[in-house]
């Protein structure tokens, strides 16, 4: 798992050096049965290509969309997904947990 995170961060650096806009998403808080531990990374480039995961695949689509905005705007943002949250319900964090995901641009 750690070696995979290593690949993710190396990829983030390589994409940025190749001139891509790149965003890094990090799981910062979890409640209940969240699928990925805090510190898990997902890296996204301006093509919409991504590597890694912040959930078992439940919210990645939404995170990628937000990440593209962050690459554009440059300002980091905190996303929250959970069963109580309408967005998350739509996206479907089926485990019933809640997570907060920090999305930042690699500048």
């Amino acid at each position, binding site marked *: 798992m750690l070696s995979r*995170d290593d690949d993710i961060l190396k990829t983030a650096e390589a994409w940025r*050096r190749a001139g891509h806009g790149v965003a*890094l998403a990090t799981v910062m808080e979890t409640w209940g049965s969240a699928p990925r531990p805090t510190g898990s990374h997902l890296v996204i480039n301006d093509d919409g290509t991504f590597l890694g995961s912040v959930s078992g695949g439940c919210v990645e689509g939404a995170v990628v969309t937000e990440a593209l905005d962050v690459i554009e705007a440059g300002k980091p943002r905190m996303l929250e997904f959970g069963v109580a949250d309408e967005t998350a319900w739509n996206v479907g964090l089926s485990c019933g947990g809640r997570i907060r995901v920090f999305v930042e641009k690699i*500048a």
Partner: protein
Amino acid sequence: MKLELLAALNAERAARRPVVVVTDVDRGDQRLVKAAEFASDALHEELDRHLRMGKSGMIDVAGRQLFLTVHAPVARLVITGAVHISQALAPLATSLDYDVTVVDPRTAFASPERFEGIKVIAAWPDEALPPLGIDRYTAFVALTHDPKIDDPALLHALSRDCFYIGALGSRKTHAKRLDRLKGQGATDAQLGRIHAPIGLPIGAVSPAEIAVAIMAQITAELRLPRRAAVSENAA
């Protein structure tokens, strides 16, 4: 995150040095804390706790939310002796996410068939161990019962900053071993680092149970607060 910070982070990780990224969640600013700076950092207690557990997490410092992204190297286990206990220990350690290497010059023991999916090196410790780069995220165990193999391996491990060293053998066997190692220049402080008889005392009988006792002791050394920071420095 700035590209320079990311590059520095990747360099530390590639060198198997632990490193922490501290992010101010509200302001978005970040800094990297390298291993050499842990002790003198204002957050050193929090850093120590999170590093030992290998866990990232949010902390509250004077009303500010800081996120610690912890990058601890993957723990490794180096075993000398491709023996019966190792056959139980290697897969157990693998299941606990350790990167496992078994070293034994006896090719009949160190066969891939006996250690499916495990890295096995059929060579003498003098030759096999130095390239492995045993570091403070490595646990080392000597299990052959054969001084020809275990002694040089232990001397190598003692010269490195591994977080755990254990050796198989009764108290009597171990006392003899200490005499031999002393004769070869090991200091008392170094010898005090060896856990022997190996493993937590759980009344283990079978090789698999001994493997559990060893792995439990290794886990305690990895996760519990350092009891012997002083002796570590002395060594």
